[in-house]
């Protein structure tokens, strides 16, 4: 590990991507993620990389497609409305089995919404952001350190599985400053990628990068193969944190900034004698279903704390097959729940449980 530095979440993403070997960034400014682009604009020219402010979000994601086709890691970043614009390009990347890193520092929506933080792109990210049958890897950092660590991980897994990966942060995570230990520089991408369009030199057949297939039989086969790969990812790449879960009777499920708010509420609830813990999904796709199903056998109830209208709650209910009640504490539109609001929900569940 290198020396500790003090960074904004957005800067940590940019620096971590560079340290992981990414030398191509394409983007278009939007609050609250503009520091990613600003940092890249300062740093990339100094290290022989490419920073390019595209004419639009759509252009930027298609530039990522172009670089990825040549076997080099590439990334783009935006915030919610900009990610909607990129959806078509993400679908094309998935259809062409290309690796890419997409950063989404979420803000309140729908539509133009606002510039304050939100987690309301949960569905968009976890259901495959675009048309067709596909998934992207989704990571939900909860500290500036994780912004750095998960950026590197997302790039490497995108490469390993040849699929797009999304870092799903929120405006608070992007803007807040915390100490970070940056990882050592690495470059696991290699020059020899047998699938990449690098020129045949008349020695091999063409590598054709496309999402178009005119034969339905072939296209079906590709879809089946892709979902075989997804199955393996679901088995091996789930990442989650368990906090005070050993004797917990109530399990909070929260990711990103709401997990931090919840941690304060849990500490307070424990002081009041309420046995509450937290299962924090770090990968949102693949979703830690098995860990939640195991928790459902131990706890009496779940409480989702989200900055959306209960999008992750649906995944929790699916994961636990509705075995236990799942309650919701949510704020939207750029508002962040307070520890007291979360505590109040915990208390209501605990009291309800006693009556039963």
């Amino acid at each position, binding site marked *: 590990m290198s020396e500790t530095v*003090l960074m904004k979440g957005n800067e940590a993403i940019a620096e971590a991507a560079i340290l992981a070997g990414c030398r191509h960034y394409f983007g278009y400014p939007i609050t609250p993620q503009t520091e990613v682009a600003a940092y890249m604009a300062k740093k990339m020219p100094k290290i022989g990389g490419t920073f390019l402010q595209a004419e639009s979000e759509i252009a930027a994601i298609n530039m990522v497609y172009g670089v990825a086709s040549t076997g080099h890691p590439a990334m783009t970043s935006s915030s919610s409305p900009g990610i909607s614009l990129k959806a078509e390009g993400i679908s094309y990347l998935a259809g062409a089995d290309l690796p890419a890193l997409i950063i989404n520092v979420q803000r309140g929506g729908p539509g133009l919404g606002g510039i304050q933080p939100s987690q309301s792109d949960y569905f968009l990210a976890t259901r495959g952001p675009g048309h067709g049958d596909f998934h992207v890897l989704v990571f939900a950092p909860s500290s500036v350190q994780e912004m750095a660590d998960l950026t590197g991980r997302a790039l490497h897994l995108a490469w390993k599985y040849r699929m797009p990966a999304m870092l799903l942060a929120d405006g608070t995570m992007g803007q807040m400053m915390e100490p970070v230990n940056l990882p050592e520089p690495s470059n696991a991408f290699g020059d020899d990628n047998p699938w990449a369009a690098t020129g045949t030199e008349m020695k091999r057949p063409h590598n054709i990068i496309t999402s178009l297939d005119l034969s339905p039989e072939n296209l079906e086969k590709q879809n089946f193969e892709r979902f075989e790969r997804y199955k393996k990812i679901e088995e091996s790449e789930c990442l989650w944190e368990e906090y005070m879960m050993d004797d917990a009777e109530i399990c909070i499920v929260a990711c990103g900034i709401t997990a931090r708010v919840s941690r304060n509420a849990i500490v307070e609830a424990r002081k009041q004698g309420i046995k509450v813990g937290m299962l924090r999904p770090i990968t949102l796709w693949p979703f830690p279903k098995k860990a939640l199903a195991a928790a459902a056998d131990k706890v009496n109830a779940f409480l989702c704390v989200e900055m959306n209208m209960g999008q992750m709650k649906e995944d929790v209910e699916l994961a636990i097959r509705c075995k236990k009640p799942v309650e919701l504490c949510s704020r939207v539109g750029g508002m962040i729940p307070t520890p007291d609001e979360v505590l109040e929900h915990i208390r209501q569940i605990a009291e309800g449980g006693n009556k039963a």
Partner: protein
Amino acid sequence: MNHKRLTLFAGHYGSGKTNIALNYALWLRSQGLKVTVADLDIVNPYFRTKDGAEQLKAAGVRLISSDYANSNVDLPALPGEAYSLVDDKSACGVIDVGGDDRGALALGRYVPGIREENDYEMLFVLNKARPLTRNIDDALEVFYEIEAACALPFTAIVNNTNLGPLTKAEDVIAGERFAQEFAERVKLPVKMSCASEKLSAELQNKVSNFFPIQIMQLYYMEKEGTSLGKINL
């Protein structure tokens, strides 16, 4: 510590300008002075001087800030009221300039008045733990870019080397050495070294002109001493 009628805090974004500006204003007020703070940040949409509005009001410090700060309107607008800072010479003014050259650009329109009165300090806030000001050359780049953007030369350096909640006394001391080395390069003095008031006892005689600051707490951050759970893969 001496002060001028106007004190301007500029520097790399995230160097700590807003926190120091708030604390400096409260310090001036504690000397019985009439004080106004102006938030001229047109760059940063989050974490603004306005976050400290209640504290300033309670202390009797006037705050000039964009009506749009901390709202959903991402408008880089400056309030017309900000001119009063330059014109009303009966009050001390503390100006929180936006980060980097882009933030300092907005200061330019007030510079003719500030120069004419010539009773100001223009302070370069420096945090060695920020990745783009970790060495003298990188910090010099930021320093000259800001001067060029607002056309107001710096008059002194402020050491604000910190790692947030992990800051130790030795970080501040090392930061002061760095600030002194930097100050020699630009031929200016180091005005003060800032750190959380929690480090007061440790730093009192270790740095010259120690300026203790109260750090704005964000409610959604974990309270001190909260640990992480077990991470599973």
